[in-house]
């Protein structure tokens, strides 16, 4: 078993992976906690949740790469799975702070505000952490499974699948914007107080969440690497490149697509669940169609069909966004638009493509 896992990437890649992971999990927390504040190397407190947010996005990018980069299905609906996981976590956080809200009520504040007398049935169970963990996986997973089943069964693919997922995103966003839906409407869920008994305002809790995210990301990366390396992963790539031939070879693409689509949605949901306590809010704007399309561009910028590319792209685009929206808010959309166009026109293989090209040149020169 362990041998199988070790085989999924080269020794050099393992060394790199573990090096990066230890930087994320060990070095950065040390730089934050141990290194004195006046030191150049010190990582200030406010950066920790921001880094945690980026790691969540990286997890989304992994999920996106699995379905788009490897299987060739461009989903414009991953924002929904992200938000569903986020809402599940948000509901738990709302439930555990019952009685501590502005109205000191057992119900979440927005329900008191709407003059609701009791908890809607679908909020039951979210006061237990284990139930919430289950739901974080089950809700996006089941939803994706049902949607995917109907879509893949009728062999919707290519741009059709993309625009159907976009319509799904749009419809769900509208649904969550309604107050009557029972998830806080426009404002969503916010003002969380604590998680598992730890206050969310404590730096140590933030650091803990960050480390958890990093570990989850590492494990997800290994899982994805394992999948794309396996025979299953080969079939997925084959579906991407020539679906008809896969069918003629006796495989049923429906099962493969459905599996990877559901897995991708679950990873996305987990990312959302980790995102919410670090950012402190979840609202329907996470489901905007634009957000889901942005997720695709993270993968495209880094390089489709390479897991490293997805991680890299999420970091690059979001880093640029953080800087731009502060420095030149008016120009951000121009820049984002330009990234979309430039990547598709000039960098079909993304940033990773450049380095590969570079490596090849060196190799060729050596010959």
């Amino acid at each position, binding site marked *: 078993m362990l041998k199988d896992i070790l085989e999924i990437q080269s020794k050099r890649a393992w060394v790199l992976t573990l090096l990066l992971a230890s930087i994320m999990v060990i070095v950065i927390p040390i730089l934050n906690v141990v290194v004195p504040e006046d030191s150049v190397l010190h990582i200030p407190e406010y950066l920790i949740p921001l880094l945690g947010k980026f790691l969540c996005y990286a997890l989304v990018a992994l999920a996106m790469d699995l379905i*788009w980069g490897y299987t060739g299905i*461009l989903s414009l609906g991953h924002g929904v799975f992200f938000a569903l996981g986020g809402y599940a976590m948000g509901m738990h956080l709302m439930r555990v702070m019952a009685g501590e809200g502005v109205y000191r009520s057992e119900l979440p504040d927005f329900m008191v505000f709407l003059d609701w007398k009791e908890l809607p049935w679908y909020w039951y169970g979210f006061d237990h952490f284990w139930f919430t963990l289950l739901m974080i996986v089950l809700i996006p997973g089941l939803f994706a499974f049902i*949607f995917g089943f*109907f*879509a893949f*069964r*009728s*062999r*919707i693919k*290519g*741009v*059709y699948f*993309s*625009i*159907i997922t*976009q*319509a*799904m995103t*749009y*419809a*769900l966003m*509208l*649904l969550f*914007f*309604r107050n009557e839906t029972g998830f806080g409407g426009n404002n969503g869920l916010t003002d969380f107080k604590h998680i598992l008994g730890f206050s969310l305002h404590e730096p140590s809790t933030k650091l803990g969440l960050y480390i958890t995210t990093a570990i989850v990301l590492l494990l997800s990366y290994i899982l994805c690497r394992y999948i794309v390396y396996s025979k299953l992963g080969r079939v997925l790539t084959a579906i991407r490149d*020539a*679906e*008809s031939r896969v069918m003629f070879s006796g495989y049923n693409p429906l099962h493969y697509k459905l599996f990877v689509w559901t897995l991708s949605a679950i990873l996305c949901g987990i990312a959302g669940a980790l995102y919410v306590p670090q950012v402190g809010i979840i609202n329907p704007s996470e489901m905007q*169609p634009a957000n889901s*399309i942005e997720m*695709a*561009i993270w993968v*495209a910028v880094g390089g489709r069909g390479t897991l490293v590319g997805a991680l890299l792209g999420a970091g690059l685009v979001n880093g640029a966004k953080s800087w731009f929206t502060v420095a030149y808010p*008016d120009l951000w*959309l*121009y820049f*984002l*638009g*330009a*990234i*979309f*166009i430039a*990547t*598709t*026109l000039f960098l*079909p293989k993304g940033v990773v493509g450049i380095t590969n090209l570079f490596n090849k040149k060196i190799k060729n020169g050596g010959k």
Partner: protein
Amino acid sequence: MKYYKNTTIVIILIGLLLQLFAVNVNAAPTTNMELSQALAGLGAKSRKKIINSVKKLGQIGDPAAIPALEALQERKLRADANGRIYIINDDGTSAKEALTGETYTGAIDDLYTPIINNRVRRVIKTVLARLKLKSSDPEVRLLAAKHLAKNPREDASKEIQTALEKETNDEVREALALALALTQIDSPRKDQRLQTIKTIAESGNLKFIPLLKGVLAKDSTGNFIEPDAEVRKAASKAIKAIKRHMLLISTIRNLFYGLSLGSVLLLAALGLAITFGLMGVINMAHGEMLMLGAYSTYIIQEIFKNFLPGLFEWYIIASIPVAFIVPAVVGMILERTIIRHLYGRPLETLLATWGISLMLIQTVRLIFGAQNVEVSNPSWLSGGFQITQGLLLTNNRISIILFAVFVVFLVWLLLNRTPLGLMVRAVTQSRSTASAMGILTSRIDMWTFGLGSGIAGLGGLALSQIGNVGPELGQSYIVDSFMVVVLGGVGKIAGTVFGAFGLGIINKFLEPFTGAVLGKIFVLVFIILFIQKRPQGIFALKGRLADG
């Protein structure tokens, strides 16, 4: 108005003279013995006498009594020792004669104030309402009719009937009809009751339903209040008839709104369907072509407002070519510079065009601001036809439907009756064969892309007449127009027409039951299920192209 023949010449002359000098013209249109006698009775010491006088004034039916009755109600009526009555002026220190308007010269404190109670007030209110039915102000008539409907009195029914025959204002007519029905539905005569119910059924007005339900009600012992079975049967029939009528009206209304929404969707989706059929790419910036069309309309409107105010009414006509050409040119530039390089990579095209749409939105936002701009209807596009109560067909929506039909017809002509259309169809069917036959496919792509964008621009122009114009305008329509393409398929105009009107109408019919949001979700679920039934007929290309 009633004029009495026995009025003496002297009184007429006095009346005319008084009228010439009258300060308040309303106060004395005429004078006659009976009226002044009845008015004098208002100043009586006994309440019974006052009530009788009020009723008498109601019978005379002369609006000249209105000020006096109102004054009595407000305790502003006074009587002197001779039985003449006066109304205190608004300043509270002077008074004038109730009928003639003569200013009272004596001390106001010497006058007697008639004492009234609630019973008198009730009678006054009803009589006032009956008198006010003859007012020239429709608002006053409406209030009067509403009051009569609230306090139905059978003896007023004749007056209401006459007023109803003369009435021209629809709203007042409706209130009067209700008042009349209320005065007659409790009539002891069976034929009168039946007749009333029949009139109600013909009116088809939903407001009568509680009244009819009252006819069918039972009292506390379980017996019917209405003794006659025939009347009850007529009432329940009438309820059904009214409900049927309302259903018909709401169906027509939904159909109309659905058609106009469908027209906008049609204009938005037509270009999308053509370019998708031709090139197999989804243009995410297509919604922004709508937006550009709407902003072009706005610019033309501003130009007309500032430089050609005399022709402002016709700015919308001048906008048509502009709203077509601006997006068409933008579309052709995009095709030449970006989309052309992405052929055979539809998913990448989707992302690239999304990038374009972001840039277009931001550009418009920087130029025109993030707020909505105001595009007004020319006067010949505002207003509408009131078909019946609750059914208003507005001119702007009618025009949009006609405009969409016109545009679709032109596109159909272009595709089916011109050399360019022939080439477009050829490239759609088989790009390589068409190319081998000497068609410059890349030029066809450019023209088609321009055409599709231009049609979307016309959709934006149509939209500017019924909705808000803002930078995000296209975003709210793009998802729906994609759904039209999914539903209607590509390659055939008929499919798009069917898809657009189908979606528009389904949306409008679902809205009253589910609300706009759930309606949209139902439509999406419907589309997904629909695809289950007809996947190959609607989307996937057949044969060798299936995997392309």
